[in-house]
């Protein structure tokens, strides 16, 4: 955990270089470029993420998008706190909490522990139910309802009354649902499209489900305008990682058309895609292990400009696969899991 940091551009650049070295990344962007990127994103709100504290438990942290001004929002050493989600107005924060010592699952974190609701700065945290209740809860666009996903189907729960206002079959969706900004659709991970891990979209009016991407995919997120979906997508490759390949970040229109690479590396799996509130930047995690390493330390987070994508870390094999991709200019941020971003200033307010 790094308390408040120096935000001067040169100090920032030096810190980023150190981080590059520490993580062994192949990112070779000039320091001035990353310093510019850091200065550009610093005033754009707050990023929440879960990470191990110095005491060894998982806490919810907030930081400026350039990785500075890190602060612990939960301060609860007796529990493991994880999976933070800001409401779209940035005033409320959901996360899950379970007794210390339990392992955060890379696949099932959305249904572990109790769902907690707090103000965006972590204050007034309270439980919304028993262990396992309200699994995979995600915000409605107006922050008044939660969408949950459980074996018997989706349920929309009114936050004020805790009443289920609508339920419907899940049709193969099983993790990481996210409600569209216009409230009309859900994207999530589904097993109904010929791969175990597909990204699919469910129209709430018709309950018609369609595939967005049918490679092995996960961690989808909507662009703020609802016109694109970003997601992780593993590209098997005979010459890489024993043929297993590496997980890359892609984007497509919600109907699955126009799929495009966003960012790829060789040597790390990229997950946790989350777009900035203005849709111009992408947060992600870069994992040596495939599941995001929540059972250990999490993985270094990163941030890049969408306008500069498709982007690759300079590797000969990747250059052959993506000859038009630009070289990477990405910030390396602290290790964490499932970051989310709000433009609001509420997370930084005193508790």
């Amino acid at each position, binding site marked *: 955990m790094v308390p408040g940091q120096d935000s001067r551009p040169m100090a920032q650049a030096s810190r980023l270089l150190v981080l590059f070295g520490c993580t062994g990344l192949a990112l070779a962007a000039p320091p001035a470029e990353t310093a510019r990127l850091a200065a550009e994103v610093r005033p754009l709100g707050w990023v929440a993420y879960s990470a191990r504290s110095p005491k060894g438990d998982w806490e919810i942290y907030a930081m400026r998008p350039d990785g500075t001004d890190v602060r612990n929002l939960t301060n609860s050493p007796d529990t493991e706190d994880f999976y933070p989600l800001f409401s779209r107005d940035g005033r409320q924060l959901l996360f899950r909490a379970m007794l210390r010592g339990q392992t955060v699952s890379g*696949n*099932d974190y959305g249904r572990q522990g109790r769902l907690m609701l707090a103000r965006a700065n972590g204050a007034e945290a309270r439980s919304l139910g028993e262990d396992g209740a309200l699994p995979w809860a995600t915000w409605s666009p107006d922050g008044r309802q939660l969408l949950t*996903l459980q074996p018997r189907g989706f349920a929309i729960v009114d936050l004020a009354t805790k009443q289920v206002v609508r339920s419907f079959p899940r049709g193969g969706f099983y*993790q990481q649902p996210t409600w569209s900004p216009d409230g009309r659709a859900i994207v999530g991970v589904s097993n*109904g499209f010929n791969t*175990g891990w597909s990204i699919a979209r469910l129209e709430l009016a018709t309950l018609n489900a369609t595939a967005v991407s049918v490679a092995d995919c996960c961690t989808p997120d909507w662009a703020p305008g609802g016109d694109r979906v970003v997601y992780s997508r593993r590209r098997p490759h005979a010459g890489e990682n024993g043929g297993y390949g590496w997980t890359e970040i892609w984007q497509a229109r919600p109907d699955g058309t126009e799929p495009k690479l966003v960012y790829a590396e060789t040597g790390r799996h990229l997950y946790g895609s989350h777009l900035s509130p203005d849709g111009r930047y992408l947060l992600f995690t870069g994992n040596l292990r495939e599941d995001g390493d929540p059972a250990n330390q999490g993985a270094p987070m990163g941030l890049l400009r969408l306008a500069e994508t498709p982007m690759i870390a300079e590797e000969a094999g990747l250059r052959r696969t993506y000859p038009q991709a630009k070289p990477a200019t990405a910030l390396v941020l602290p290790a964490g899991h499932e970051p989310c971003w709000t433009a609001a200033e509420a997370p930084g307010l005193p508790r």
Partner: protein
Amino acid sequence: MMSRSPAAVIGTGLVVCGFLLWLAWPFSSPKPFPANLGNVEVVARLTEVPEGAVFERELYHYATILKYEVISCARGKVLPGDTIYVAHYDPWKPRAAAADAKAPGIGGDVRAFVAGDRHHLALAIPLDDHYMGGLVDKYFGRRPPLTYWALRTDAD
């Protein structure tokens, strides 16, 4: 010493053969599972194990769909001769070691899935009520949508 007539010898032989056949009779019913274990109980033959349907994966759990031909049915609306599709959780593990928090209550004594083997299965439907996770379906688009969830898989 009393000698036996050929008819008596043949008769005794038939009785012994009948007894042995009864012991080995393929349609004899195995010991039934508890009646509350799923809603379907069958003996079925694993038709095949498609390439890529079973693989070891360290970090992610999955279920794979395997095709069976039903031999006999003790519970449920399934008929001998029917083809059914059964989802097995983490199929690369022995059934006795496959249960975890994501798939509690599964088990059995089958150690590996081998085409042609006969299994005594306790099954549950619908699949969505019992399993939320990755699904490997080598029959996608080529089979009816009903998928059974394997709770118990014993060798028959």
